[in-house]
Structures are given as C-alpha cells and as structure tokens.
C-alpha cells in the first residue's frame, strides 16, 4: 500500500512532471513534496495552491448537487480536480477523498511541451484513490 512518498514518486514519473506535492487545503500545509517548486519555495507554493483548492472546494457554484444530492453530499469534496494552464505549464490539483475528515489534494506541476494533461489527469485520479484505498 503506497504512502505519500510513493505516490509522489509515481506522479513524478509522468512525462513532463516538474514538481509534485500533497497539501492540506484548510491550512496550506505541505504534507510531502518532490521535485522542484514553481516558486522555489515549497511552503509558498503549498499556501497558494491550497487557497485555490479551497475556493474550488468551498464555493457554492461548484457544489451544485444536481440530481444526486445525497450521494454527492456523502463524498468528501464536491470537486474532483482543478486545472490551471499557463503558456509554459499545466498545474493539476486533484482532491483526495478520505473516510475520516480531511482536506487533502495532490498538486502536480507539468511542463506544457512534454506533459500530457489528459494522461496526467487520469493517472493522478488513480494515485489519489490508491493513497487512501490501498
């Protein structure tokens, strides 16, 4: 069963991966980091990405339950992932659902020329699930 470091290592194996982190969005605390940080400071990057993740997780516009109100409400986060694109990079934030109360997400920073956003998104989804489901 993988822990935080094994999952980060696997994420860094993706094409174009430059940096990866597991971050708590309520506090902005990085629980684990690997690779380079876009700000050259893991803690600053964690605080900034956590703020973005918090907005996505908490704002009501993204939390519309539609027809599956109860099923959605039972899950940890109403949002699956947040994608930010820049001329040179992709940033993928993937929420991790735990059965106990937590607020954790993966942050993967990809080089835009080398990275494959669709592949990374699918792989990160799998990693986020394996981190807590084994």
């Amino acid at each position, binding site marked *: 069963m*993988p*822990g935080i470091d094994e999952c980060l290592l696997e994420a860094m194996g993706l094409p174009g991966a430059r940096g990866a982190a597991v971050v708590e969005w309520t506090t902005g605390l990085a629980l684990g980091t690997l690779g380079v940080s876009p700000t050259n400071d893991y803690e600053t990057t964690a605080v900034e990405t956590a703020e973005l993740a918090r907005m996505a997780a*908490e704002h009501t516009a993204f939390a519309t339950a539609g027809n599956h109100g109860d099923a959605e409400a039972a899950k940890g986060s109403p949002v699956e992932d947040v994608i930010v694109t820049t001329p040179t990079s992709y940033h993928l934030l993937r929420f991790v659902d735990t059965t*106990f109360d*937590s607020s954790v997400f993966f942050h993967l920073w990809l080089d835009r020329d080398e990275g494959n956003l669709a592949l990374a998104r699918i792989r990160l989804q799998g990693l986020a699930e394996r981190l807590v*489901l084994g």
Partner: protein
Amino acid sequence: MRALNPSMLVRMAGDRATGALLRETGTVYLLDGEVVHAESPAAPGVDVLLLARRRLSSAEWQETIDRAGARCRVGRSLVESNLLTSGELEICHLGAVFDAAFFALAPRTGPTRFRYGATHWFGPVRPLRAEVVERETRRRQELLDRIWPHPEVDSAPVVRDRAADNPAVTRRQRAVLDLADGIRTPFTMARLLGRPAFHTLVDVRRLAAAGHLRTPRRAAAAEPSPIPAWVADLSADPDISLLRRLRDALEATL
C-alpha cells in the same frame, strides 16, 4: 508571533535528542532529534479523528493498542493489520501532530521541561524537522489573525448570529454552525466533528468575520492572550488532573 521557546525544541533536535518537551499546553516528542508525535488536551488525537466518522471501530483501535502499544508501534501496526493504508495513516497522523504542536508550542509563559528518553506509544510515522514544526506553528497563528483578529472567539461558547443578509456558508462551516448551541466551544465541536482543533478555529474565525457568529466583547482589563484561555483551563478539568496524577505516579515507578 514567535513561539516562546523555539530554541529549546530546536536545541534538543540539534543534539539529536530523544524525549518529550513538556509544556502546560501540550507535549512534543522527539526521536533522534526529529519530531515524531505531539499531543495537547486542546487537539483531538488520532483516535478521535479516526473513530468520529467510524473509519475505525473502537474495538479495532483498542485491539491495536493492546497488541502494539507496549512496543510503541501502534501507527505502523494499523497499516500492517490492514486497518488503514499508509496514506491514510500519514495524512491523519500528520494532521494530528501539527494540530497538537500548534497548541503545545503556542507562546505562553510557563515552564518548559524536557524529559530525556520519553517515547510515545503511537510510534513514529513520518518524522518531521523541528524547525518545520515551529515555523508551521507560527504561520498558523498568523493565518488565524489574518482571518479575524479576535482570539476571543476561539475560547467562547459559539453563538450564532442569524442576520438575514449574511453571506452563504461552505459545507464544512455549515457543520460547525449546526453544532452552535451557545454552550459548545470550538474545542468540543472539533471532537464531535472528528476534525483537528485548528481547522475548527479557522472555520469559527471565518464565520465570525462573516457575521454568522457573535464575537464576544473583549474584557477591558484582559491581556490579549496569544493562546485561547480554554487551553489553560483544561488543566482544571478533573479528568485531566486525574490523568496527570496517574501519569506522574506511573513515571515515578519507572
């Protein structure tokens, strides 16, 4: 805001010491100079976090303690017996350790002692550098003050303010509001919700800033306290006093 005794924890860590840094508001455990555990009466422990939403049953928790507690391997044993994944253990334990350290290392006058050789029965999971823990503790204090610079709301019973034009609340904040009965404090709510105490304080301060919760008027004569008064008051709790006496008696026999 600086923690009162940054040097003591960092100095002990620099000496690669093993033992417990004891303060009135909590305890931080070092193993070979790294922070491996922390606990505080203010912060729900790993057991509270895992049991609140039935991630573990109390029987499973108790069996693990019985099996691995004496060997100080409770955390690892939860994974070895397939009760938790490594990821779950790490996420939960790190959350609990940083939460307890926030209260344990909070700036406050009072004695700080270091008991060499003391280890915690939970056992190491993901050791942390002492500097990282101290820096995070300071950052958290600044975060609270940025959200709503009124520490009074941390310790007081949470009272709702039902003005019609208050902005919408988030799902996590809704859970806090639903528990606000004018008696519960953020500390008791954190235990009921199975959430770290600091996370609950963040939501309480945000709710107070948005006008959903009343901010008690600061007593004119009171010194601004860097740590919620209820943390210190906890030692007056008869259960905790009893536990402390038991602990001291046990330690005296070692």
